[in-house]
């Protein structure tokens, strides 16, 4: 039932609205609203009960194993939330002076320093509000760099075919043409083709490493050399930083610019879709172009570097200075983990993935790249199942929900047929992994004994399988009071 169906005209919550009457007669009538918006009129209890019950209809880290590849669904420490919500942080207006924000700015500055260390870059800006905005920032800097050198021909961004959708979409948003580079049969970039494709039009290459195929790009140094030699720059999509944090630094691989997804690697919550934080790091070459603002320190005082400090900056990407509350959570997480903890993240994320991969192989599940080590994630392909049994990866995904596990990422990357991208993360226990593996094996069994059970899954979720075609054809995007 929708909240609107619990609503009744005339019901109010006087505790929540100012009690004094106000004078508004200086606003001319023609600027005022005539009708009342259809917001729900419900009591506080009705609202609390409605949304508490709704929440229970979600799978989440706090309730389920959630091995969603590329998304790094790991434990979000409750301390990060609690201490980020201290009134001193929550009540500070973004346009109040830096004098009134030294505590907050100190955290931001230290976070910048830690990210520099982890990435091996030379400067960092915390502005971007998510990974995709980080990508935009990075590619815009690449553009600004070439323009600043009068190198205006460079109109193409290269992207592996396995790349996340935000990579090509970002290149387009920055006004570039996108060229796809194929993957070889072992999951590495096809270096031969790369060589053919690069040239004077190449502005840069966007790469995720470990890639979205769940493997480490072994030719990374060769790739670096090819692109740089051609005059292009190297962009690092840091969505998979969880796999290598403390083990390898993107800066050492030769990347010029990188974004991180703190909502993945630094475990700030995904919140059902966001918010995130996508800081960008750059090497010396791109430093002048960094977006503003970022925090600088002079003799123990912190302040924002703005337009005047950074005349060549690509500018601002939003009205404020990044998703501050997310950045504080990331800062707390980093302090809890410390340098040793960072490294362990990568180690145990990788151990868990390799363990699962091997165990699933033992149960007869096909891997997309059986010859490779898993990184923090790996790809399963259910093509044989689809061909033989007519049961799709999506069917299996839905059936996993019935067994209490969130499904892995399905049908991504696009080049692997009927695939699952499985990322267990380091915070899951072996018991949880084993339970998923058993569920998976059970489902494979079911595809033989009762394939329809799987095809019509899920059965135990709040709703059964949803008709997405209908959703797109008969658009119903907002409730309207039909009784009016």
């Amino acid at each position, binding site marked *: 039932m929708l909240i609107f169906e619990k609503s009744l005209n005339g019901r109010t919550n006087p505790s929540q609205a100012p009690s004094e009457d106000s004078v508004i007669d200086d606003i001319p009538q023609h600027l005022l609203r*005539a009708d009342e918006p259809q917001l729900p009129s419900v009591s506080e209890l009705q609202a609390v009960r409605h949304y508490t019950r709704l929440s229970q209809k979600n799978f989440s880290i706090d309730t389920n194993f959630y091995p969603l590849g590329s998304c790094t669904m790991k434990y979000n420490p409750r301390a990060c939330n609690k201490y980020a919500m201290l009134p001193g942080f929550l009540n500070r207006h973004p346009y109040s002076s830096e004098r009134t924000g030294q505590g907050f700015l100190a955290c931001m500055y230290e976070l910048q320093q830690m990210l520099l260390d982890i990435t091996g870059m030379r400067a960092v800006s915390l502005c971007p509000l998510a990974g995709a905005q980080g990508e935009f920032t990075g590619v815009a800097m690449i553009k600004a760099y070439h323009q600043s050198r009068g190198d205006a021909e460079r109109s193409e961004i290269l992207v592996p075919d396995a790349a996340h959708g935000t990579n090509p979409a970002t290149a387009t*948003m920055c006004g570039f043409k996108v060229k796809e580079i194929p993957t070889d049969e072992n999951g590495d970039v096809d270096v031969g083709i790369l060589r053919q494709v690069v040239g004077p039009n190449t502005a840069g290459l966007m790469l995720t490493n470990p890639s979205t195929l769940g493997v480490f790009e072994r030719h990374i140094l060769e790739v670096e050399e090819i692109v740089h030699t051609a005059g292009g720059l190297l962009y690092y999509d840091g969505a998979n930083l969880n796999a290598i944090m403390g083990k390898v630094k993107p800066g050492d691989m030769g990347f010029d610019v990188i974004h991180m997804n703190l909502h993945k690697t630094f475990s700030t919550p995904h919140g059902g879709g966001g918010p995130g934080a996508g800081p960008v790091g750059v090497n010396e070459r791109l430093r002048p172009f960094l977006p503003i603002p970022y925090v600088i320190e002079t003799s123990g005082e912190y302040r924002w570097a703005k337009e005047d400090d950074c005349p060549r900056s690509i500018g601002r990407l939003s009205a404020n200075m990044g998703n501050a509350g997310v950045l504080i959570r990331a800062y707390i997480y980093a302090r809890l983990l410390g340098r040793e903890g960072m490294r362990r993240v990568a180690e145990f994320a990788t151990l868990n993935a390799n363990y699962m991969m091997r165990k699933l192989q033992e149960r007869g599940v096909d891997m997309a790249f059986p010859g490779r080590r898993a990184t923090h994630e790996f790809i399963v392909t259910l093509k044989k199942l689809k061909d033989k049994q007519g049961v799709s990866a999506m069917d299996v995904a839905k059936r996993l929900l019935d067994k209490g596990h969130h499904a892995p990422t399905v049908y991504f990357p696009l080049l692997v047929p009927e695939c699952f991208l499985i990322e267990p993360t380091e915070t899951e226990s072996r018991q949880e992994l084993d339970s998923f593996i058993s569920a998976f094996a059970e489902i494979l069994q079911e595809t033989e004994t009762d394939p329809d059970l799987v095809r019509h899954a899920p059965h135990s979720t709040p709703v059964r399988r949803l008709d997405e075609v209908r959703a797109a054809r008969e658009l119903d995007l907002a409730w309207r009071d039909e009784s009016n």
Partner: protein
Amino acid sequence: MPFIPHTKQEIEEMLAVVGVASIDELFSEIPAELVSEQLTHVPAGMTEMEVARLMTARSQQDGNYINFIGGGVYEHHIPAAVWELTTRGEFYTAYTPYQAEASQGTLQLVYEFQSMMTSLMTMDVSNASLYEGASALAEAVLAAVRVKKGINTVLMPRTVNPVYRKAVNSIVKNQNIELIEIPFSIENGATDAAAIQNYSDRQVAAVVVPQPNYFGVLEDVDTLTDQAHEIGALVIGVVNPTAMALLKPPGQWGKEGADIAVGEGQPLGIPLSSGGPYMGFMCCKQKYVRQIPGRIVGRTRDEQGDTGFTLTLQAREQHIRRSKATSNICTNQGLMVVAATLYLALLGPQGLRRVAERCHHNTNTLAQKLCATEGVHRCFNQPFFHEAVIRLDRPVADVLSAIEAQGINGGIDLSPDYPELGNALLTCATETRTIDEIESYATHLERILSR
């Protein structure tokens, strides 16, 4: 090991399953020369107790100022229930609802949010949030240019928040879109509607119309909208959502209504938090639904005919359409949508209207009290809402510093962005300010200016 559950014995058993001797061996595909040394700028880990102590000290260091700053970000009372529920693990730690059947909580909530926002804006369609107000405006500009294929010019009034204008420009200039500034009247602070007529048919993709504008001045939105439509441009409204409980919403502007409405959702239950996370919203007319970016939730049926909710029109999005997507946005500000939905449900139409009215009343009172001091005047003679521009007889920055020393954040110095206004100060008092606080500001100001 913090947050890692593995015991020694498990590690050994798991390594044996994988068939390697050590964890390091799992990284054997990484070229040896790349493997890094220990981190040097990340300090050793702390216990939660130590972190609690540190963060408490840091947060207290930032003091506790009485806030008269607005500028597009407002201190409002947030019902306790909003964040007690928003931080429930099921909302807080879920991912984007790609598996609809396992995400009905988030999905239904977003559908309800879309319903509330479209009704508040009187538009047909709402998406499920963008990053924040300025980049939402940039996305609206990009959408308008997509609609008006081939036209790369957008009219942007100088009365739009300067940081919005800067951010929009940083974003859209990469697609060679030109923003042309529309001036405002120095008497009344409103956009010069006549300037629109300088642009003849089919040269302009869209006209941006703020309501209220950055100065808090109320624009003549009907005229602006009609004139924009006359020259064949779309109208992009940039509005304060709280104000829409009181003011004519974009869908009702002029003869046909605005085409796209965007803005900053922060006033709807989201704390100030030094600037984020906030939430951009975007609504549009039905016919543009396929041109807008961001996630959209639709109501549909399940296999048994029961009602359910799912992401829809995903063919606009990067994970499907890749380089042809309407935007690169992926992660949005979902949790802020939870907060905003709860806020709107708890306030209701009448509550939200009372908040809007009180903000206006308080800012009005503030402006009057401040202007009672000699040398202090209202800048504009136009009706306003929620913010007011005050002119002082000396540089604003110095006065603001002196006020800050009294524990008061007095407002925003407009002189860097609007030198033409002289010593202009943008100030605001929401419903959270008491009359005592307003008077204390006025008293301090008088004392400071009489020095």
